[in-house]
């Protein structure tokens, strides 16, 4: 009987101890992460998106706009315009022409979300007919409200003299807004190259495309690799990305982080931004043809490069093996005779 009691107690103890530990975590979600808007004035634009509080506590978020520096952010990592600097683009008051509205079309500067609650919002932009043609790149920022955690407030002074840092969480949605005629799309392939001579794969291709047009573009394309017999033996899909107006973009399909973005000169552990063809064994002359379309309506560009592969290490090893076998054969033959 004591044994039964013991197991019952143990089971109860284990059962109670399995309750999840509740942490004061903050979790926010937005969908989608990027809004690409192309408009021709006059236009009344409505761009829907959703924000969700995924944590178990309520949160109040302040909504704001922050302009992106296109030159510093050309490879897709957002760097904001420095505080106090004017926003890039013709209309310096573009943010006054937009607001975030809820389902009832009420403008929102702050939004309160309960635990696990999501809110469907829309970015409403009104462009008058005389709006000048220009591109605007900015982030719509949702920042946890710090009104209740003002450190100067005496309400927050902890009597036990305990020092602390309040963590403020925020999340952003990127907005790429192109205003004006979309027909004048211009670009140049600044770089398409790979080392001419190589021993083996994988093969890295450097591809830099510059957008000379007035608006952002989203090119699509591929690199087809043919061997010396004209057979297509490889294909590298160029990832669909956006090139901002007046900037160039280095395409990559491998893990790459621009070291300068951290503000440091330490580049030792970095990869270079390249498109990788993962083929390992290569022999002979190869032709790589790049086909790139800057938009669904064109223009389309093509460029061809060649490279030669010779597996020197494999052949040297093979030669050494043949020589060793030959020597053994000759010695055995000599002894036999």
């Amino acid at each position: 009987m004591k044994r039964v009691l013991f197991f019952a107690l143990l089971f109860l103890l284990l059962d109670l101890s399995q309750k999840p530990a509740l942490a004061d975590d903050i979790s926010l979600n937005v969908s989608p992460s990027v809004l690409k808007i192309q408009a021709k004035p006059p236009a009344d634009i409505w761009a829907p998106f959703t924000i969700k509080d995924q944590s178990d506590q309520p949160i109040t978020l302040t909504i704001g706009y922050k302009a992106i520096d296109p030159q510093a952010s050309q490879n897709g990592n957002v760097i904001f315009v420095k505080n106090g600097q004017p926003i890039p683009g013709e209309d310096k008051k573009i943010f006054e022409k937009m607001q975030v509205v809820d389902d009832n079309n009420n403008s929102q500067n702050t939004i309160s979300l309960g635990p696990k609650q999501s809110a469907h919002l829309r970015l409403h932009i009104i462009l008058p007919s005389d709006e000048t043609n220009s591109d605007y790149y900015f982030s719509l920022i949702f920042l946890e409200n710090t009104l209740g955690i003002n450190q100067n407030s005496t309400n927050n002074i902890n009597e036990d003299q305990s020092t602390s840092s309040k963590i403020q969480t925020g999340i952003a949605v990127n907005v790429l807004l192109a205003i004006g005629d979309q027909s004048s799309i211009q670009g140049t392939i600044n770089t398409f190259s790979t080392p001419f001579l190589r021993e083996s794969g994988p093969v890295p291709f450097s591809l830099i495309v510059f957008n000379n047009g007035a608006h952002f573009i989203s090119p699509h394309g591929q690199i087809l690799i043919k061997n010396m017999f004209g057979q297509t033996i490889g294909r590298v899909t160029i990832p669909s990305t956006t090139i901002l107006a007046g900037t160039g973009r280095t395409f990559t399909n491998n893990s790459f982080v621009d070291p300068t973005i951290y503000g440091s000169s330490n580049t030792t552990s970095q990869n270079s931004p390249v498109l990788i063809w993962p083929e390992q064994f290569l022999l002979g002359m190869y032709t790589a043809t790049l086909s790139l379309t800057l938009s669904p309506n064109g223009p389309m560009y093509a460029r061809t490069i060649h490279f030669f592969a010779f597996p020197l290490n494999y052949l040297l090893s093979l030669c050494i093996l043949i020589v060793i076998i030959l020597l053994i054969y000759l010695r055995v033959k000599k002894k036999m005779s």
Partner: protein
Amino acid sequence: MIKLCRSNKERQMKTNKNKEPNVLIITYCLLLITAVFHFPSIANADTLSNGNYSIDVGNIDTNPQPTQIPPPKNQVLGISTPQPEFTTGPNYTVNTSNDSFSINVLQNTVDYGILSSTNPVIRTSGISFSDPKFGAEILTYENRPLESAKNDIIQNTSCDNGDCSSFTAAVWTNTLTYGFGYRCDSQDPTLCDPQFANSNYFKQYPEDSLNEQAEPLMINNGNTHQNKAVITYKVNIPGTQKVTAYYNSITYLAVPGF
């Protein structure tokens, strides 16, 4: 003697018999409590209602039904699927990345406790973000250095050699080096600043009150699925520092790439 022993045993057996029902009752109660707490969560009802509607269902079949698996679609090489158009209106088009993006910060407050001189306090907290289509980054800054209600300040650390700043990391191990700083560690060496590959390297937070630009804490270009990092906070004060409570606010802003 034998008789005495027997009478003792009989007495013990009688008392045990009296105790047994009590033990049984306790055991049954415990098992009942365990069972009640163990199965509280799922309630399958066949009537749903509120003030405006009521739905009655005769029975609910909770057995999984066989679902028809759609045949796989053939992929044609060289033709990429066009991105779905999200919304359009007169004179405008909105295309989206068709994804979602999230940030998760495991603590909303970092408590350093009561500080004592030349006794560094180290705290850690976790931070992560989801893997969006075009990569993402987390930017960070502080509203100001740790400050008391009477405006006493714990300065941001300048590290052992006096070289570290909001964009340069440096070693900080000396207990006679004072201030406040942070470092970032992740399993993927490219996620945090590569300067943190060296252990005991710390940085300052950029200061919003000085109009300093937010600095990237973590960057993912969309090619790695490791998006978790541990942030280590370090505070050390000299003997001359007033022992009181100091506060500041540290911001982590998750920004998707494009």
